[in-house]
């Protein structure tokens, strides 16, 4: 039997709590995201992953090593990682000659890939290049989607749902009005999506 599929009987209370945190529940945990680098990931893509990691800070893992896989051909290694780290969202960055600055965003259901979308990065300005103070990590962002494409085309609708899922943050019942710090603005225009974050 595989290590991950063994039915583990916990021997300590701590192990039991750990397993209970990972099992399916009625009110679910906040989705964790894993950020993976591909076989040849260049500086742009790595910086993108780092920035997204800082946006998703306590609910994300950034893998430092490069993993030589192709998400669209073989999902097993992604599913393995997701099972190990209990993450249901992932972002995979790579760089080819034919697909420069490639970013695959996806989500999982029951540790299997549910859907994923491949995007190419055209222009990227890193967070560290923008000279201002950043928001504390863990703040819930406001999300705005502009453009009618996000409702008309099926692909765009799926992308919208994926992006909401990814950047949503914890679901809370009350929110401090003074703590509405930043907004992520997605505009669909001419087949491109402009992603801006304003504070």
């Amino acid at each position: 039997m595989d290590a991950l599929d063994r039915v583990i009987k916990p021997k300590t209370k701590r192990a039991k709590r750990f397993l209970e945190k990972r099992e399916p529940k009625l009110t679910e945990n906040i989705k964790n995201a894993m950020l993976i680098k591909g076989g040849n990931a260049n500086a742009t893509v790595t910086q993108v992953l780092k920035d997204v990691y800082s946006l998703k800070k306590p609910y994300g893992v950034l893998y430092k090593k490069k993993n030589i896989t192709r998400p669209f051909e073989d999902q097993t290694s992604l599913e393995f990682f997701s099972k190990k780290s209990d993450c249901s969202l992932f972002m995979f960055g790579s760089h080819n000659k034919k697909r420069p600055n490639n970013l695959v965003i996806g989500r999982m259901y029951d540790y299997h890939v549910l859907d994923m979308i491949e995007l190419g990065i055209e222009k990227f300005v890193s967070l560290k290049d923008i000279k201002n103070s950043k928001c504390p990590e863990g703040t819930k962002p406001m999300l705005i989607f502009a453009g009618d494409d996000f409702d008309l085309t099926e692909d765009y609708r799926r992308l919208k749902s994926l992006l909401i899922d990814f950047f949503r943050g914890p679901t809370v019942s009350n929110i401090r009005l003074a703590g509405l710090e930043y907004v992520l603005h997605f505009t669909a225009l001419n087949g491109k999506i402009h992603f801006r974050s304003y504070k």
Partner: protein
Amino acid sequence: MEGQSVEELLAKAELDEAEKLRRITVHKELELEFDLGNLLASDRNPPTGLRCAGPTLDAELRSLARDNMQLIINQLWQLPTERVEEALVARLLEPTTRLPPEKPVPRPRPLMCWQQFARLKGIRPKKKTNLVWDEVSGQWRRRWGYQRARDDTKEWLIEVPGGADPLEDQFTKRVQAKKERVAKNELIRLRNLARAHKTQLPNAAGLHPTEHQSKEELGRAMQVAKVSTASVGRFQERLPKAPHGAGKKRQFQPLFGDFAAEKKNQLELLRVMSSKKPQLDIIRATNKQLREEDQEEAAKRRKLSQKGKRKGGRQGPGSKRKGGPPNQGGKRKGGFGGQMSSGPPGLGGKRKGGRQHQGGKRRK
């Protein structure tokens, strides 16, 4: 003069007010859709203004974002607020956007035997004290565990009870009794687990040698022993008086039977043979796929071991499960049949036979 300056001031104040109002109210053709539980706003207006703008794209986007943000903040400020620890807090609504869950809905576990019995009889768990008074040591000791109150294992003297054999070893008897209790407990736990995951435990009646075993039980034990070889009993000699033909029997229909059923079967066969689309037996296809993958894995492993580059016996991420875990009760047959031809969106690559990762029976 003063009047004029007062008028000027008033006019200026009015202009300022108008400016402020213009900033706060934004005019849009289509209203935005708000999902305040997620702090989400969707603007359905076609971005016509932006299409023309080339170099000023950033500024245009920024102004669009500012407008949208103003609208969403207006909405948020209209929510009922309360004051919690000197901070103004708005009570958010439930999120309305439907997003897929992370894991499947938890199944309610079936009650275990004892729970059913307790529920039937109305037995409730009695609250027990943590510590028990121990006469021997003269102190309060815990009920079980390290240095417990009445510890059987530490006794150096056990009296032979009245009716027992004087030559029997009471110490080993005690140890054996404990082992039996532990084994019984483990069996019940596995049985409960099997019932929870709806798999069957192999029927073990007659396989444990006891005093009186019936002829059938002995026969069954013998059959199981015969089949438990590496070739599943194909090359075992048959015992002279053993009934042969024990085991699975093939069912044959009678020669002259149900004509209607026979006609239906033959027509079905003809239809299947003449149809253009191949009929896919999901179970066989999946098993075949899994077997192929097993062989590939084995070949890879052999190659690795030949090269001598053993990385501590590490298995690749796609390594297989052998026996099928009991979790997620393997619903292999028809459960994922629907997913076969049209896989979940975004699933590329070669998926031959609807390869499943859930457990369940593998080879049959």
